[in-house]
């Protein structure tokens, strides 16, 4: 019980930082009640006084909550926001959509949650970006938000060596970068040849920076639409997007040995 209070306090903290209203919180509460037990929110009225808590105070409280409980709660909460975002988009309320997205992205990267924006958020945003009814301004806003709030891969964070003889690749970060890059190029709306040239150039730069062995990076026309793909050989994987979908399939880890040199 005590822990759930703390989570809700943190949640309110998120609400303050982002654009989430108390009504939204109440709705989360309702959803939560349905799914779990009403006892969790028995002393909900007490939360009001915690709204005035500073981020540092919230952070201090949050350290006492187990990671498991945090993940459980935030997992449900992020799902809730995503549903709301889809509804907003379906209703044509792009301002609310963008507001929710901003909240979500800020919330996802809060150091006290330890949870980063999910891949699904990028996938959703990509779909909205490509939807025919999305205007140029909406697209630009989406892109700006993503560029501002999404974490990107760097030479420091892309590879992780946990010390067990393995190296792990943070492909979620790479996915963010690929998604943003594709959206940028789509927004520029250049010729296919020019888009392909810039894409190759950008991928070449990323590959150098992250020491990725790239086999090919291509933009081509398929069924009247631009299709982007990036084939990597080390780590092995592919990033792909067309007008309707964006996905990747990449190797997550391997023994940390030097790649074989040419004979």
């Amino acid at each position, binding site marked *: 019980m005590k822990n759930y209070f703390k989570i809700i306090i943190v949640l309110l903290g998120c609400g303050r930082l982002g654009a989430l209203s108390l009504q939204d919180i109440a709705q989360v509460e309702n959803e939560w009640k349905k799914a779990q037990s009403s006892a969790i929110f028995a002393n909900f009225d007490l939360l009001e006084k915690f709204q005035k808590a500073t981020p540092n105070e919230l952070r201090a409280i949050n350290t006492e909550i187990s990671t498991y409980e945090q993940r459980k709660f935030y997992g449900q909460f992020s799902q809730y926001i995503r549903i709301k975002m889809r509804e907003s988009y379906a209703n044509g309320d792009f301002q609310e959509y963008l507001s929710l997205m901003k909240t979500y992205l800020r919330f996802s990267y809060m150091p006290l949650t330890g949870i980063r924006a999910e891949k699904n958020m990028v996938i959703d945003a990509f779909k909205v970006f490509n939807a025919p009814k999305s205007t140029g301004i909406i697209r630009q806003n989406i892109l700006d938000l993503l560029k501002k709030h999404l974490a990107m891969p760097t030479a420091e964070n892309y590879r992780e060596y946990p010390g067990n003889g393995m190296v792990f690749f943070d492909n979620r970060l790479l996915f963010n970068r690929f998604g943003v890059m594709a959206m940028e190029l789509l927004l520029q709306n250049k010729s296919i040849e020019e888009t392909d040239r810039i894409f190759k150039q950008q991928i070449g730069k990323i590959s150098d920076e992250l020491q990725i*062995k790239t*086999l*090919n990076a291509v933009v081509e026309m398929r069924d009247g639409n631009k299709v982007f*793909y990036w*084939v*990597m*050989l*080390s780590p*092995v*994987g*592919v990033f*792909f997007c067309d007008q309707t*979908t964006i*996905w990747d*399939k*990449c*190797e997550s880890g391997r023994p940390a040995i030097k*790649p*074989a*040199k*040419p*004979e």
Partner: protein
Amino acid sequence: MHIFEKNTLYTLNIIIDKDESLHILSKLGQAQYNYYPYIHWIFRNNPTALQQGVDGSVKIGKYQLEEMKDRAYYDECVKFAYDIGILDILREATHAPKHTYSGFFLNGGIHPRYSNFFNNFTSLHRVIPYQVLSLLEEGSQDEAIDILVYWGNAIMMVYPQYPRLPELIEHIRTKYRLTDENTLMLNELLARASTPRHKGESVRLVIPRRDSMQVRNTTFRELQILRNSLSPEIKNRFITECSEYLLERIRQYRKSNDCEKYLAALESYYAIVSLNHVYTNEVLKNAFLFFNSPQTPTASRVQLLNILKQRLPVATSANFRKYTDNGDGNRVVHFSNKLLFNRFCILIMELLLDDKSSEETDRIFKQQISKISEELKIETFDAVAKIQDKTKAFYWILKNPIGIFACDQTEIAYEVQNSAFEGVTH
């Protein structure tokens, strides 16, 4: 013949040396008596290990004798003892001094507990010459001479002046046109049989070593028999040990670029792991590097490709998808990407061996991938063969299941979705 004489474990013979045999023996000997067919096999195929190995085998033999519970076990033990030096086992089992060996047989002074054992031995003893002649009539000359030499060496230990042996050898030499190798083997056996010995003189069993390149071609049926004849636990333990050993050898021979040994070890490895269907991609990736190495001659490349084509299981419409129920009434489809990777590798090697122009290679590659996609109901986005850093590189992008197969001259890899709810990919 005993099943283990022709099974896939023969393959080890090519690369095993004395120390390694003993190492394996010690590992196996400490494990369980069920391993003894393999110990039998190791001795049988490795004369260099025999001299020292007999001591180890005595203990195993004794243990078996004490643990024997049924007739089938007796039969196996007889075959085992027969090949690796029956007298030592008998001495251990009965605590008899060496010079009384033949007395046991001739006077019937055998402990009742071991009577079946001896009965089996003597039956085998009578049957062998007829089996040898029968095989010669069938044209299985190598097999016949192998048996005769094994049996001849063993029987000389029991009956140092066994009269039928020289007679039988002479008969065979006269009646059948033998190969040079078989003639040589029989001459050596005859020389041993004609050497007078004193009663009780210790005689070592000598087992000839035949070039085993031909016996590596184990049939599927033989492998199946082996698989069925062992308990899963024993089978897996043995296969694991053998395959780890071979894996080490593969790495070593790859490093030293010893083509012949490398290929032998590789083929052995695949023959053995085919018994439990546990294939590691490391070996295949290693083979790909070997294939692309400038030091590998074309003949070895062809041989490697043939081995892979013969030994590697590949994806077919029957084995590529497997279905399970996730408990919620949804069907989950699992993709055998390893099998698809095998097929991809073989295809690439074939194309590289063809050594056509880049455009032609790309055309054929696309064609082949399209054929595979159709057969396996894979939704392919693209398949490309291109020149990268002056060498050919290939990739194949799949949309359903989603994933990638890719390679250049130095690396081959894949990453493909393992499973999905039926009809859903991403």
